[in-house]
Structure formats: structure tokens, C-alpha cells
């Protein structure tokens, strides 16, 4: 919803008519975005960092 200001007109739905389906879809998406990111994702990024560090050390 915050991303509506991305410089493009909303194309999905007209803003003049009530649109429960549109707002429910937006809420469904936002609910997931607002969930706490599970630990596995942080572990994965850590693994990427470990690769990154060993790669950059190899360059020196």
C-alpha cells in the first residue's frame, strides 16, 4: 500500500467504487510482508556472507 506512490496510476481497480476484493487482496499480501522473517532466511543470508568473505579474502 505504501508502494502506491511509485509514479504510476493504479491500474487494478477504480478508486471511486468500494472494492472489498481489492482491499482484501492487498491485505493478504501485506499480512505476509509484515510477518517476522523466519530464521531460515537469516541463516541463508549468513551463508551468503560466509561465501562472500571467503571469496574476497581469496582476492587479496
Amino acid at each position, binding site marked *: *500500500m505504501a*508502494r*502506491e506512490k*511509485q509514479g*504510476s496510476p493504479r*491500474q*487494478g*481497480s477504480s478508486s471511486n467504487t*468500494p*472494492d*472489498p*476484493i*481489492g*482491499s*482484501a*487482496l*492487498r*491485505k*493478504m*499480501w*501485506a*499480512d*505476509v*510482508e*509484515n*510477518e517476522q*522473517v*523466519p530464521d*531460515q*532466511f537469516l541463516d*541463508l*543470508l549468513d551463508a*551468503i*556472507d560466509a561465501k*562472500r568473505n571467503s*571469496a*574476497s579474502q581469496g*582476492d587479496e
Partner: protein
Amino acid sequence: MMQPGDNAAPDAMFRADLVQIVPSLRAFARALAGNRDLADDLAQEALTKAWAARASFQPGSNFRAWIFRILRNHFYTTVKVARRFVPYDPDHSDHVQIVPPNQGGQLLLADLARALATLSAEQREALLLVESGMRWDEIAVVTGVPLGTVKSRITRGRAALRRFIDGPEDATPVRVAALTP
């Protein structure tokens, strides 16, 4: 010191892009798969693939569309390889959240999830992507189809949702899509 072949700085930027996209990537995976665990597996695999393919990303281009496309391709490849239909499996049933009344319109997310399960995966992803704020042309890039196809999926998907939600008892298929351009 930056030397030819030293990718430390671009890799750090790419890593920052990955961190930032995780919530949206999870949302898109959920839109495709429905089920939380399967969606999170998909999103993690997409992150790994994106990292491995980072050299093919043009800095300054649309990172969101690029990585969403990776996730989507991976999803459909997985479905194909499994040689089975992976059903959209929404797990919103335990949620009781109600979308705030919108001039009389109320919709339970569980009802919406059930309605979404009746759509094709292509319609479902297009509808959720457009409501996530993505532009039609970006959705065309993500899904690899012409703009007209994106518009058609959104229009038909919306009509099907409306039909399901407004008249679930009506077993007679009604061709509403043709009436709403």
C-alpha cells in the same frame, strides 16, 4: 582495494537488495503456493538462485521484477518436474481478520483464500501482483507474457473472484468476464 575481478562492493549491494526483498518475495511465494512452508522453501531457493545468478543482474534495473521472475520460474519448474498438480493450498482458514468495512463491503480473508483457490495460478499471481503495487508492464516481465495477456488475466480473475464471492451457491457458470472489459 578495488581490482579487476574484485566483486566485493557489487556483491555487498546485491546482498542488501536481497535482504530488502525478502518480505515481498515471501508474499509472492505465498501467492503462488498458498501454503506457508512450501512458499518459504520456494522463496529461499529463489534467493539462492538469485545469488548464484547475480552477475546477470543489471544494476539499476528492476530488481523486484528480476527476482520475482526467478521465483516464478522455479515454482513452475518444480510443479512440472514433480509431474503433479501442486494445488494452491491456502492456510488462512484459522485467521479471523476482517478487511475493514469499505462502504458496506466486508470480506473474510478465509473466503478470499477459498475464492483464490478456484482461479488458475496465472490469474491468481497476476491479481496479487497488481494489488501489491506492481505495474502491468512489470507483471508482464515477471510472468513472461504480453501486456494484453496480463490485463486479460487480471480482468478475468477479478470477475471470477467476484462471481465466487457474490454467489457461491450459484452453480451455473456465468460468463461475466465477457461483459466487463
